[in-house]
């Protein structure tokens, strides 16, 4: 176990690791930059929002999405690492789904990008499989007692995406105007769509 009196600064340790690999030509910094920029700018929850908004406005697509998540998501061009097999879970008036990975941080990268810090945090990972209603309430989502809560622990290579309910009063909105209402948190199941900017 590492010395608990003196911990080396992790940012320096990371730099040291990179140096040791780069100076031997084992890692190319340009490849690192590409990985980083991909998940900082190209792949994020906007992809998932497009999937959800399309499902809200096209019943046939929604049916395909619920039957074959990976295939229907690929129709919109989204696939890749951490998306080998994606399952879409529909929230309704009576069922609320919420997703976690208690062992690490498994998350559907092609549609949501990299997970937010709370998803990777020990507090969320430990508690949402034991007291989900309380955790959701603390995160701002109060669910009535008659709503069935279903928690999905992502322990295999299957990745879960929540299809949130379309907010009331949006019947006249076009698909592209619905996209901004589909928040990342609503697609993990810790918020309702349209509830906040998260």
């Amino acid at each position, binding site marked *: 176990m590492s010395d608990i009196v003196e911990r080396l600064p992790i*940012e320096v340790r990371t730099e*040291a690791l990179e140096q040791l690999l780069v100076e031997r030509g084992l890692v190319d910094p340009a490849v690192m930059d590409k990985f980083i920029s991909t998940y900082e700018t190209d792949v994020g929850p906007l992809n998932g929002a497009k999937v959800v908004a399309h499902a809200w406005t096209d019943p046939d697509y929604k049916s395909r999405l619920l039957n074959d998540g990976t295939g229907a998501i690929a129709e919109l061009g989204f696939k890749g690492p951490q998306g080998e097999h994606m399952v879409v879970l529909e929230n309704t008036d009576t069922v609320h789904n919420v997703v976690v990975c208690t062992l690490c941080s498994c998350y559907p990268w092609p549609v949501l990008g990299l997970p937010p*810090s709370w998803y990777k945090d020990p507090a969320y990972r430990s508690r949402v499989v034991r007291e989900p209603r309380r955790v959701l309430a603390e995160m701002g989502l109060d669910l009535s007692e008659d709503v069935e809560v279903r928690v999905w622990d992502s322990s295999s290579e299957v990745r879960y995406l929540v299809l949130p309910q379309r907010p009331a009063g949006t019947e006249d909105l076009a698909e592209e105007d619905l996209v901004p209402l589909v928040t990342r948190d609503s697609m993990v199941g810790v918020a309702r769509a349209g509830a906040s900017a998260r």
Partner: protein
Amino acid sequence: MDGVADLGGMQGFGAVKRPEPEPVFSERWEARAFALGLLSMRTSGTNLDSFRHALDRQAVLDYFADGYFGRWCHAAETLLVDSAILAPGAVEARTRNLMGQQVPEPPIPTPDKPDYKPTAAGSLRPVDVAPAFAVGQRVRARDLHPLRHTRLVRYVRGRRGVIERIQPSAVLPDTHATFEGENPQHVYAVSFDSTELWGPDAERFTLTIDLWESYLEADAS
């Protein structure tokens, strides 16, 4: 293994904190650690299950001390040292030298990568035998305590559930993580009543988790 990463149901972590705003990477070193984590698998000749195993082998204090991307940095180092791409202590020595200390760095070792090659890309693999369990069947998660990597979390071991759906068959992480074979198996989403997991006073909900066939047995009770 019964490692630090298996957090489901543990108490003592407090409220869920949600920083605002939240960039993908809060600091640049986090982005570098992320990229190094991904590349460490290729460079060390290992795989994603090995990477996860490097996470759950971490010492308890290390796991929490440096945050999420700190874990990635430590796991990358573990895989690279295991494959003798880096010498033990090499990263620490270089870190100290970057900090202005003057310490000797160990010589570069002779690489000793695992004798391992995936049979296909990704983790999904066909299995020639039919699934042992059917949707709706009652099962029990085995009460196993392997010393090796496993995705059989502690909080379902010995508990009774129902097969919710049959997932695509996949490589078994338990052996794949340590290069002892892909051993593909059927995978099942298994649903557990919250009171089966947490007792009669638990909140009412259903917990569904993916479990490999060898983690399960038919529930005769």
